């Protein structure tokens, strides 16, 4: 079987920066990503279809992304796209699918940079065509230049919602309105974190700039509690606290959560509940080491920190990989990582404020009839009924109801089901075991598996 000294999963900011840094230390690098091109979600199609003009919302970020993509391409790392990782064995054998075939390598060090997914925001009717994530709509803009037409509503909270609304305005699309679901009283909660956040004031200025742009354009910003999607076969209207508005698109956003689909499937890889970010994340040291030897995590997959922090974490993890593989001594690693660790701390300074302003929306608001698990079409009411019967946590509710057992394997519903059960039981979410995942973490055909017997 082929050997890979360092295998990096994910070509977002963390993976790209890690690949460049590892190559600079002389390590042979194999980089896999299931997307057709590098960039991850935040730098998606940068340098390809997505080339925002200077000064456009998101243009600074795209410029940083282009630098990362170009550096990784020039580094000599072997980059494979359209490559979907689906299993990691304890002996370091990694399996993925690419071009309809299964492949395997034995990795000495595995660095996972799986990024984040949008947090589910279950509302009545959110399975209707015409309802999608704000991040999904932004991906359409970046990868294909697509702009939503008609009455476009954005609902939820968080920086991405305001950035995308500003990007729409910049492209001449006027959203019908923003439904601000952020909980009231944010100023008091946030004030505590403000001094820390001012260590990196650029983020605040940028966010306020997007919001100002929306308000100056006269786009209605409605503070709302309840939003529902209505329609037969397709979204046609939304109900907002009892009022109905015609709608062609409803874009939802409630922040992002670490993608821990692979780390949770690895026996012995410890995870902890992050109270501030209301999500599980793998236990990591400053270098990105997990509790399993030779397995590192960098970027948002280890806790949400944003693209710049992710890139720094990728470089730090690459230096640690270099130490593991004997390319650097511990002293050399420390000397090289020092400035990176300082810069990362500065980049992470505003997180407390962001987490305080935008805590995930409480599941208590989710009506019993609302679907939470989109794959198996399981409602909040059925999850609550299962809790009333004595079901303790997400892994049992999966067995009882199949919630989290469908094709997405809990990628979308996992955090929502978890929060719903914690609220129904009246316990801290950290007291419930996270949904266990299983390899293959993405579907693989029997034909592909059979092909592995052929020797590759």
């Amino acid at each position, binding site marked *: 079987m082929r050997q890979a000294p360092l295998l990096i999963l994910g070509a977002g900011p963390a993976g790209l920066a890690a690949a460049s840094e590892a190559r600079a230390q002389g390590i042979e690098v194999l980089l896999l990503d299931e997307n057709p091109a590098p960039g991850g979600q935040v730098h998606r199609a940068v340098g390809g279809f997505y080339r925002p003009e200077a000064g456009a919302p998101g243009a600074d970020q795209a410029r940083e992304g282009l630098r990362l993509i170009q550096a990784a391409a020039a580094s000599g790392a072997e980059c494979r796209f359209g490559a979907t990782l689906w299993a990691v064995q304890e002996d370091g054998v990694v399996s993925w699918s690419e071009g309809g075939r299964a492949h395997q390598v034995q990795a000495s060090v595995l660095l996972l940079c799986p990024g984040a997914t949008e947090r589910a925001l279950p509302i009545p009717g959110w399975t209707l065509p015409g309802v999608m994530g704000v991040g999904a709509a932004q991906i*359409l803009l970046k990868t294909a230049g*697509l702009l939503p037409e008609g009455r476009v509503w954005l609902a939820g909270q968080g920086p991405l919602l305001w950035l995308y609304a500003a990007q729409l305005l910049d492209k001449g699309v006027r959203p019908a309105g923003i439904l601000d679901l952020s909980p009231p009283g944010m100023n008091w909660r946030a004030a505590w974190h403000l001094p820390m956040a001012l260590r990196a004031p650029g983020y605040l200025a940028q966010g306020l700039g997007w919001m100002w742009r929306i308000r100056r354009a006269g786009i209605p910003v409605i503070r709302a509690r309840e939003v529902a999607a209505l329609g037969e076969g397709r979204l046609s209207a939304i109900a907002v606290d009892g009022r109905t508005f015609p709608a062609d698109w409803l874009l939802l956003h409630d922040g992002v959560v670490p993608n821990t689909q692979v780390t949770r499937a690895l026996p012995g890889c410890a995870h902890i509940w992050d109270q501030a970010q209301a999500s599980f994340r793998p236990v990591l040291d400053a270098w990105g080491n997990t509790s399993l030897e030779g397995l590192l995590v960098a970027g948002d997959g280890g806790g949400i920190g944003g693209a710049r922090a992710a890139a720094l974490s990728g470089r730090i993890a690459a230096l640690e990989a270099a130490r593991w593989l004997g390319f650097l001594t511990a002293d050399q690693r420390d000397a090289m990582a020092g400035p990176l660790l300082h810069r990362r701390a500065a980049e992470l300074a505003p997180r407390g404020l962001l987490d305080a302003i935008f805590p995930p929306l409480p599941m208590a608001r989710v009506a019993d009839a609302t679907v939470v698990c989109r794959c198996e079409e399981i409602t909040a009411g059925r999850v609550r009924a299962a809790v009333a019967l004595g079901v303790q946590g997400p892994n049992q509710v999966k067995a009882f109801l199949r919630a989290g057992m469908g094709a997405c394997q809990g990628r979308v519903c996992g955090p929502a089901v978890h929060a719903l059960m914690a609220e129904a039981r009246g316990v801290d979410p950290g007291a419930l075991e996270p949904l266990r995942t299983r390899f293959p973490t993405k579907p693989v055909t029997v034909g592909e598996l059979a092909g592995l017997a052929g020797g590759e």
Partner: protein
Amino acid sequence: MFRRSGPSDCEITWNGATIPARQGESLAAALLAAGVTHFRDTAVSGSPRGPFCMMGACFDCLVEVGGVANLQACLVPVTPGLEARMQIGARAAGN
């Protein structure tokens, strides 16, 4: 629907009908740009679904491509002449 801010450069078929597309963009993007929002009917209740996450996480954009079912339209790159169909229910065995 979604409108294009750039040109299309090829054609693909959806349920036998020809629609414009651009090489390399995702099949999901091409369909949305052609006004298609209903990609499949669920296996559980037969309810209509379209793309939701556009990044390979949610599996709501499953379609049949070239006779192969259960493919995530958001991860399938467009190639000229690609033939895709709506997926009704679950993937049939052997398909």
